[in-house]
């Protein structure tokens, strides 16, 4: 029999992918999990594994074609010895590039195959296993991972197994669902379908909208849209009460369009960024601190070493790796800044995975530098240059944009001098580097000209108070101002 392979879910909110290259041709034997195609989406690139052993059949989607998630891309002919019961969707969820933390997989009840949406959502929502020493069982974390658990259909769970074998025909979006999703601003890839073959039904969308609206109502009044800076723990009530809850209105097409206006159609990336920003503002009470850093030593070090650095590594030396190095040092000393909120308590992350915000023309991506604290300034520079280049070329892999524990944002490269960023959930804080500007400052009761950089920290006031946040910033500043000018960067 022929097994139809469909475009897998390539990450949260990704709705389509481009077939970059076929790695197998019709007639070639394929083994289960063997890569059969390279796929590029607007966020990441991935390889699609074969869902079963067999002979590569027909290419349905040629190279370069853009295919919606769930639509067929090729077929695999299965022999008598193959295992036809393997659901296509389940195999797609097991893409090797998806680093599914063990804890997240366990949190999904084994009632059905893990659907791709559930798997990727769990990656985003569940903490990695590193925190297990704090919690003997998975139980305290279950609430975070429980949300995307596929709800077993009320009727005849066996139906989905039947449906999966005859391919992606059931993944279509009915006119009613398409209209409703458009009206309500719903990203269908976020919904676990209860229909045949996991199809998202109208009822699923209505339930989703209801839950979303209820969540927005519940979260709305408690979230200050512009939290006051509170360097010391202070009574927040009057400020919070006075601020209108601006972010609670459900998304709709309520913008007024007049003659001559232009509508840029919503893209999935824009929608994903918007959802994340709204969610972050609704989830975390943002507080903000800023310090000034005298960058004299950094500037001198960079000036002295940049020619040799370029010669040796082929990349230019910027201020970014200096700050990144100072940040990971400070995070080691201040673990509550490298942490996540959970109802059971603070989860202090063991590893430091530093997210670096990279601005692209039309969107924003935050590649993650794993174990950034193990790298020198030179190592950070190289790794960040590599991630940045690949982000701009759309060549990041899925696990390179997930799992960050702290985010560094370099808007100074764009000339800003004061930036209040929105926290990259579920992290505790985000640090912004502003431009290094020569300013007249008072040093030892004399006026001196020094290169000054502002460092702005947006932090989740549930996790840290101003005290911890300020100490963290002092640490970063001390690192940067106290650099040994004799140090070698090579």
């Amino acid at each position, binding site marked *: 029999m022929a097994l139809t392979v469909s475009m897998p879910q390539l990450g949260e909110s990704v709705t389509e992918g481009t077939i970059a290259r076929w790695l197998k041709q019709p007639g070639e034997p394929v083994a289960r999990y063997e890569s059969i195609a390279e796929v590029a989406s607007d966020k990441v690139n991935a390889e699609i594994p074969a869902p079963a052993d067999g002979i590569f059949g027909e290419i349905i989607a040629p190279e370069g074609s853009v295919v919606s998630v769930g639509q067929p891309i090729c077929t695999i002919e299965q022999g008598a010895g193959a295992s036809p019961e393997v659901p296509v969707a389940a195999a797609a969820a097991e893409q090797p590039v998806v680093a599914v933390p063990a804890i997240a997989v366990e949190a999904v009840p084994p009632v059905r195959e893990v659907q791709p949406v559930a798997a990727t959502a769990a990656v985003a929502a569940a903490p990695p296993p590193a925190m297990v020493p704090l919690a003997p069982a998975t139980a305290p974390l279950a609430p975070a991972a429980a949300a995307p658990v596929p709800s077993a*259909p*009320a*009727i*005849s769970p066996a*139906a989905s197994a039947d449906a999966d074998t005859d391919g992606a025909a059931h993944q279509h979006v*009915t*006119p*009613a*669902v*398409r*209209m409703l999703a458009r009206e309500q601003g719903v990203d269908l890839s976020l919904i676990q379908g209860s*229909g*045949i073959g996991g*199809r998202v*039904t*109208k*009822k699923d969308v*209505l339930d989703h909208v209801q839950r979303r609206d209820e969540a927005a109502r519940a979260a709305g009044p408690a979230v200050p849209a512009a939290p006051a800076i509170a360097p010391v723990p202070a009574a927040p009530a009057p400020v919070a009460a006075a601020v209108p809850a601006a972010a609670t209105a459900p998304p709709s097409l309520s913008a007024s369009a007049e003659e001559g206006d232009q509508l840029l159609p919503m893209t999935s990336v824009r929608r994903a960024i918007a959802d994340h920003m709204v969610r972050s503002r609704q989830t975390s009470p943002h507080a903000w601190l800023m310090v000034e850093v005298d960058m004299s030593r950094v500037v001198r070090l960079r000036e002295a070493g940049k020619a040799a650095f370029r010669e040796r590594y082929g990349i230019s030396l910027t201020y970014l790796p200096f700050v990144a190095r100072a940040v990971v040092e400070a995070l080691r000393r201040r673990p509550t800044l490298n942490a996540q909120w959970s109802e059971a308590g603070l989860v202090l992350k063991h590893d430091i995975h530093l997210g670096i915000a990279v601005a692209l023309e039309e969107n924003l991506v935050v590649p993650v530098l794993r174990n950034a604290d193990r790298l020198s300034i030179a190592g950070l520079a190289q790794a960040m240059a590599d991630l940045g280049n690949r982000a701009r070329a759309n060549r990041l892999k899925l696990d390179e944009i997930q799992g960050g524990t702290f985010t560094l944002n370099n808007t100074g490269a764009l000339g800003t001098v004061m930036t209040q960023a929105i926290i990259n959930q579920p992290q505790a804080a985000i640090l912004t580097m502003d431009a290094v500007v020569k300013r007249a400052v008072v040093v030892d009761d004399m006026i001196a000209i020094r290169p000054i950089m502002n460092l702005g920290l947006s932090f989740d006031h549930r996790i840290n108070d101003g005290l911890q946040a300020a100490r963290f910033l002092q640490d970063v500043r001390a690192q940067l101002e106290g650099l040994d000018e004799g140090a070698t960067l090579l």
Partner: protein
Amino acid sequence: MAVKTYLEAIREGMRDEMRRDDRVMVFGEDVGAKGGVFGVTEGLQREFGEWRVMDSPLAESCIVGVCIGAAFNGMRPIAEIQFQDFILPGVDQIVSEAAKIRYRSNDDWNMPLVIRAPFGGGVHGALYHSQSLEAMFCHVPGLRVVVPSNPYDAKGMLVAAIRDPDPVLYFEHKKAYRLIRGEVPDHEYTVPLDRVRVVREGRDIVVFSYGLMVDTAVQAAERLAPDGFSVSVVDLRSLRPLDRQGIVESARRCGKVLIAQEANLAVSVSSEVSAIVAEECFEYLDAPVMRIGGPEVPAMPFAKPLEDAYLVDVDKLESKLRSLAEY
């Protein structure tokens, strides 16, 4: 209000109109002394006399033709066809004369005629006493075709049909006669002949049906409630013309549509409802339109197991609803 059977409600409708308007008369086989083969006209001849409740020869063409002549001459005749299965000899009169007279005479003439006929199976009536032939008449412009599903509608729609200035085919499900009971007001009232009735409100699926199948649909709908599926049941009431707006409203609201009928499906009421939904509700549909009805065999069998196999019952309807719910 008193609880009455479907049959009593029909009789009461005729009786009240005959008391109110002495132009109203009944003509059909055994409608007089016997009171009709099912007893629907029982007591009417005693009250209104042989000239207004008149036994006819065993000839449907004659029954319809005589009533057409009476209507031309200022009467308001009610023709009773003993079984809908036997209406076929009268079809020429109905289609060629009654349906066309207003159009043919450029509005000079009209045809205030009601033709009542019991239809439907499940009563062990076999080939010639069980058929559902409504679709034949639904095709014909110039006719109204109505089917009440309950005693309240049965009386109110019959009164409206008698007062209607044009020919109305009023089909009664014979199994409903003594099975379906409901409250019927004693006072005068009418029920519109061209409006659906939402029998049961629901959000997820709508079942369009008519006649006795409405009751079956309500029972099946209730079986899905514990599983979280909210099923709406809409009684079409008028099969020609169909209440396009009423159908569209419910279909758009629910997004999933099932049409349930006793008759076989090909070129039937369900076909027309499906077409309306396809034409007017495409963007609102969350599943293909589904239909359930009788098989494409020439008639209802006599043997009990075969009759059961032919008929749509609550189990079959529930199963169909579940496949639509799952979609």
